[in-house]
């Protein structure tokens, strides 16, 4: 079953990389590990017959957004949390009760696991109901995107414009009163 093996490979890679992202002290390593995690998720997308989405994830997400993060990490030049704060805040150094966040994360995991247990037809193969035909052609994607989702598409463009203006204004240096 090479397909299953590839699934385990990519999902294991994604989980391990994501766990390391939140376990790293240096944000630079965190960003690079997150790129690795995105590459693994793109592999999962390929397995789910979504090649265009996988490429978009790699190019837009890993290529553009993560570079933006890297740029800010380098710009701020504050790569490490100081050791004192790290020792105090490291999740592995404290019992669960003292860290309310750990408790919340565990509760969330249990809740998600419970929801997954309750599902009915979740155990059948992921492509079975689709009947083997592929729907992932870029032509079909574009047709649906520009007809059924036309309004959402236009709203997204306005969102991007607002975010761009907001980012420019927020990051602007205060002008010295002269």
């Amino acid at each position, binding site marked *: 079953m090479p397909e299953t093996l590839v699934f385990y490979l990519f999902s294991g890679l994604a989980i391990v990389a994501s766990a390391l992202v939140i376990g790293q002290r240096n944000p630079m390593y965190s960003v690079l590990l997150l790129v690795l995690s995105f590459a693994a998720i793109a592999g999962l997308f390929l397995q789910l017959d979504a090649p265009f989405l996988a490429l978009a994830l790699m190019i837009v997400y890993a290529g553009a957004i993560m570079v933006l*993060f890297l740029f800010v990490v380098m710009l701020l030049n504050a790569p490490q949390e100081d050791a004192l704060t790290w020792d105090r805040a490291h999740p592995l150094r404290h019992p669960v009760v003292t860290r309310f966040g750990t408790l919340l994360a565990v509760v969330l*995991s249990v809740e998600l696991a419970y929801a997954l247990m309750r599902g009915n037809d*979740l155990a059948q193969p992921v492509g079975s109901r689709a009947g083997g035909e592929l729907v992932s052609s870029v032509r079909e994607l574009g047709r649906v995107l520009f007809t059924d989702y036309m309004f959402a598409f236009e709203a997204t463009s306005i*969102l991007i414009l607002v975010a761009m203006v907001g980012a420019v204004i927020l990051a602007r240096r205060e002008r010295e009163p002269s």
Partner: protein
Amino acid sequence: MVPLSYYLIVSAILFSLGAAGVFLRRNLITILLSIEIMLNAVNLTFVAFGRFAGDVDGQIIPFFVMTVAAAEAAVGLALIIALFRHRESLNPDTFTNLKW
């Protein structure tokens, strides 16, 4: 073939990891990265369900999620830069005052 529930389990694990990162870390950049992890876990769920149901909608919504993530990253990073200029720190516990 791989069952749908496997993809959902992977997605749930990734989402929990992201939530744990938001709760536990004390670094604004890492918190934003954890949010990205959560958004991608949700993307994986959408694509898996879209493949399961055999329609294309499951692949359209991740596009919008990616767009929102890009906007969120741009504004969030601009906020981080502005905050860092004021306090020379990335620890969210530093920014507890409404006015300074």
